[in-house]
């Protein structure tokens, strides 16, 4: 059957009609009919995006039995969706339509009317040529599973679980330890702006354990995962237990928390041998158990040095929470004895919350001394430092408390590998977009929250957890379906040599190697259609739908005819 292509040029008021000679376009185009063996319907219209324009197009498609539609109008960024909507009201598949941008790319940028007209004809001819080689594509809808797997039962994992369970989602919470609560439950106290104390964390654990929608697997780990957003299959097992649990979920939240840098990283400090030097976590544990911080040799310290930024330079990032918790620990010490000499050695205070500076001033008011230093070495409990004025001084303390940098928790690399999520230079998981999509990863349906995402404390961990719950609740509606991208890549089995180049370049992990057939295969539910794999294929096996070679070649050939 001969293709019947409708070509409609929008006047866009004076915007196109005054800048290009539309009548000349209409006269010139029919010359294509013989050359391409097609039938053309060529018309102009005042404003195609108006209500009248849309009705006009709908009637034209129906009455003329158009097989293809080409519009000479404005940018697809303005009105592609408008005209796709028109096509959807008719029997014409929207992938057999193309909008040609003769306004922004001709009428508005070429002041010579003849040249602009010539250019517009070139664009429209190229568009017609392309659309003839376009294929009808159909939307696919996939069923989804609204349940969620959460890896890590710390504050972030628990918060995500409770947020999801509140909306009746079944949550599988997998924790490798024998208890929930992560690092938060070990603390001696919380910041005032976090409201309440450790009892609050224990209450949260109780709420999780008491929630029927949350199934908790302690001493368990994720062992395998396949699938994609809405349809993951995961295997959860316990070391030493043969029996594995196969679970089906729609999304996975990684909330594996964070580790602490080994203070041995600090040059000149032999932490393992120095008795009265402890880490902030040691101090928290001690305060939590005994209600006070004592010397290992017994008795109360009379002077304590709090050392910030331990390992910061080596790690290459600020850990965000240390300044605040070190001020909190100074508070424990001042509570213990108001006369105690408490000195914070810092390298510039990081107090990012609106409440933090007040908290710091309060500590200062209680006699906590803040010393800004350039350099610092610790020998035993002697602190030698260079101040901002360039002068060096040495001070002796009874006790030294270190704030080691946060670092990715143990097992992060293995987990990243298992999930297919890349790691950033800092060793933390890499989010898909730092600013606009910070909890999502390149694997759609896998989210990273809490201190597994980047150094963060309780407040931000909870926010990130809630954010992941928000994304899951809005993306996976029970009984709903998801519509994956249609313009995806595909691999033609006959041409594929299974070299694996495309697997390496795909950011989304959308391509896998099928060992049985010895070829690479695109998972269409995961592919976003960028076409990068296409450029990596040495054997011509790849095709990116709606941006195929043929389509681009035909458009290009007419563009330079």
């Amino acid at each position, binding site marked *: 059957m001969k293709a019947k292509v409708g070509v409609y040029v929008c006047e866009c008021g004076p915007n196109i009609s005054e800048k290009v000679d539309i009548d000349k376009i209409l006269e010139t185009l029919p010359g294509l009919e013989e050359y391409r063996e097609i039938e053309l319907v060529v018309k102009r219209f005042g404003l195609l995006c108006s209500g009248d324009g849309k009705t006009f197009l709908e009637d034209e498609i129906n009455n003329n039995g158009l097989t293809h539609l080409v519009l000479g109008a404005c940018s697809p960024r303005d009105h592609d969706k408008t005209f796709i909507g028109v096509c959807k009201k008719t029997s014409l598949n929207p992938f057999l339509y193309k909008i040609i941008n003769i306004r922004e790319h001709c009428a508005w940028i070429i002041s010579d009317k003849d040249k602009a007209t010539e250019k517009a004809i070139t664009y429209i001819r190229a568009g017609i040529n392309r659309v003839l080689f376009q294929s009808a594509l159909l939307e696919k809808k996939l069923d989804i599973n609204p349940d969620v797997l959460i890896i890590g039962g710390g504050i972030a994992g628990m918060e995500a679980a409770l947020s999801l369970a509140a909306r009746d989602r079944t949550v599988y919470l997998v924790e490798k330890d024998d208890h929930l609560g992560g690092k938060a439950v070990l603390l001696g106290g919380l910041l005032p702006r976090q409201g309440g104390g450790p009892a609050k964390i224990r209450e949260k654990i109780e709420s999780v354990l008491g929630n029927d929608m949350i199934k908790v697997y302690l001493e368990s780990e994720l062992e395998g995962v396949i699938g994609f957003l809405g349809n993951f299959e995961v295997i959860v097992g316990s070391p030493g237990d043969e029996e594995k649990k196969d679970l089906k979920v729609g999304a996975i939240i990684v909330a594996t928390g964070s580790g602490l840098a080994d203070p041995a990283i600090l040059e000149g400090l032999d932490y393992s041998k120095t008795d009265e030097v402890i880490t902030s976590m040691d101090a928290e544990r001690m305060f939590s158990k005994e209600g006070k911080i004592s010397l290992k040799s017994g008795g109360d310290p009379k002077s304590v040095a709090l050392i910030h930024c331990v390992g910061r330079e080596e790690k290459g990032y600020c850990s965000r929470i240390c300044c605040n918790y070190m001020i909190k620990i100074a508070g424990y010490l001042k509570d213990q004895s108001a006369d105690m000499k408490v000195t914070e050695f810092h390298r510039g205070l990081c107090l990012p919350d609106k409440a933090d500076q007040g908290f710091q001033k309060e500590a200062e008011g209680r006699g906590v001394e803040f010393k800004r230093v350039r350099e610092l070495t610790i020998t035993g409990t002697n602190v030698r430092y260079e101040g901002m004025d360039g002068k060096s001084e040495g001070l002796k303390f009874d006790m030294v408390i270190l704030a080691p940098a946060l670092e990715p928790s143990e097992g992060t690399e293995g987990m990243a590998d298992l999930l297919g999520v890349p790691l950033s230079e800092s060793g933390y998981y890499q989010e898909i977009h730092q600013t606009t999509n910070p*909890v999502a990863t390149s694997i759609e349906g896998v989210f990273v929250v809490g201190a597994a995402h980047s150094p963060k404390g309780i*407040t931000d961990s909870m*926010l990130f957890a809630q954010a992941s719950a928000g994304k899951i609740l809005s993306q996976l509606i029970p009984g709903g379906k998801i519509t994956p991208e249609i313009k995806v890549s595909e691999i033609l089995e006959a041409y594929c040599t299974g070299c694996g180049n495309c697997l390496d370049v795909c950011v989304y992990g959308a391509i896998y190697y099928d060992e049985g057939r010895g070829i690479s295969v695109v998972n269409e539910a995961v592919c976003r259609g960028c076409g990068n794999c296409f450029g990596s294929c040495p054997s011509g096996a790849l095709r990116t739908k709606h941006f195929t070679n043929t389509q681009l070649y035909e458009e290009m050939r007419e563009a330079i005819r």
Partner: protein
Amino acid sequence: MSHSENVLIIGAGLAGMTAGLELAHAGKKVHLVERLPLIGGKVIKDEESFPNLECSTCMVAPVQQDVLQNPNIVTMTYSSVEKIEGEAGAFHVTIKKNARYVSMTDCIGCGMCYEPCPVSQKNEWEENLGDVKAIYVPCAGALPNVPVIDAQICLKLTGKEECSACADSCMFGAIKLDDTDEMVEIDVGAIVIATGAGNYDASKLPQLGYGKLPGVYTPFEFERLFASNGPTLGELTLRDSEKNPEKVVILHCVGREEVGYCSSVCCMYSMKFAHFIKKKLPDAKIFNIYSDVCVVDKNYQKFFKKVEGADTKMLFSPTIDGVKVSGNGSGMKVSYRGGDGADESLDADMVILATAVVPDPEVGTLAEMVGLELDRHGFFAVKDDVAGSVETTREGLFVAGTAEGPKDVQTAVIQAEAVVGRVMSYLGKVTG
């Protein structure tokens, strides 16, 4: 009163848009109210965002387009919330749509009407660095791409003259000089406040010379000066002159002591500015005067160090309080106290003040209307006993972004997404 599943979002910056899109995706009907004629918020004023120096327009334009084209989102620009009645789950909201004098449905955004308009004024959106006509869009590429007429200066609307130059130039009959304010009433189950924040008024610190010395800039003035879609098309020319700056001082923590908190973003954008200037003017000398360093994300310090090493000299001062900027011939002199306590000074022809993030100036009116208390700094407070909350002290009301306090774009987006989760749960609870 029956409960509603619909959501009102006040403020169409990145936080409001993100929350709106995700709630719409979940099938909620969203009313997005923005007081400016365009959506996008503060982020679109930045040419590039830290730490990746990513083009903000490229990052946000697809979000803006998605918002405007989403059938579940009713976007009302140039509008404000006037009244909120009822209770959580069943709010009755009155919104005033200010007369735009240009039809949102008929206008195609061709811009033919600007040229003939005979009156112009400073463009507030461009931080008064450029001019606009009485009929205008705030910036090239504004979305929605529909102009608005400023009734305060339009000859016809002020009654000064029978002018119809814009209407005559419009082939689409989109100019409606008889347009009037319109009241719209809607019912919603939940309300999200995402009204953003303002910047500390630097003229409150007269010793820094802002408003008197033309070479002193606020952060957003600098952003627009640098922006390739801004008034100078990105040419870094000094105010009231055609000259490029040769010596630039960026002063951190302006207003920090006065407001009583660290704004957590200034260190990063100050370093971004240093990098921007060095990129365009490789011979320029750039100094940052700072006291603390707040670079709170896993990727921030890396950027900070890179700029510190390559583009700027960091000058420590124990306190920013003592800094003075004074006129010095055609240039300026910046005096400050050095690390050793001695008085130091620098010559400069451009000074950028990294002013604190402060509550939006209109926050009080809104707080009163929605019945919410503000915290001691004037930001919206979250429920006091819940860390990491996005719920306000009033049921059914949520807050996201810098309306809650200073924060970077990432955290604003995180709060918006957290709000989505909370709103979904909340609506599920009240409507069953």
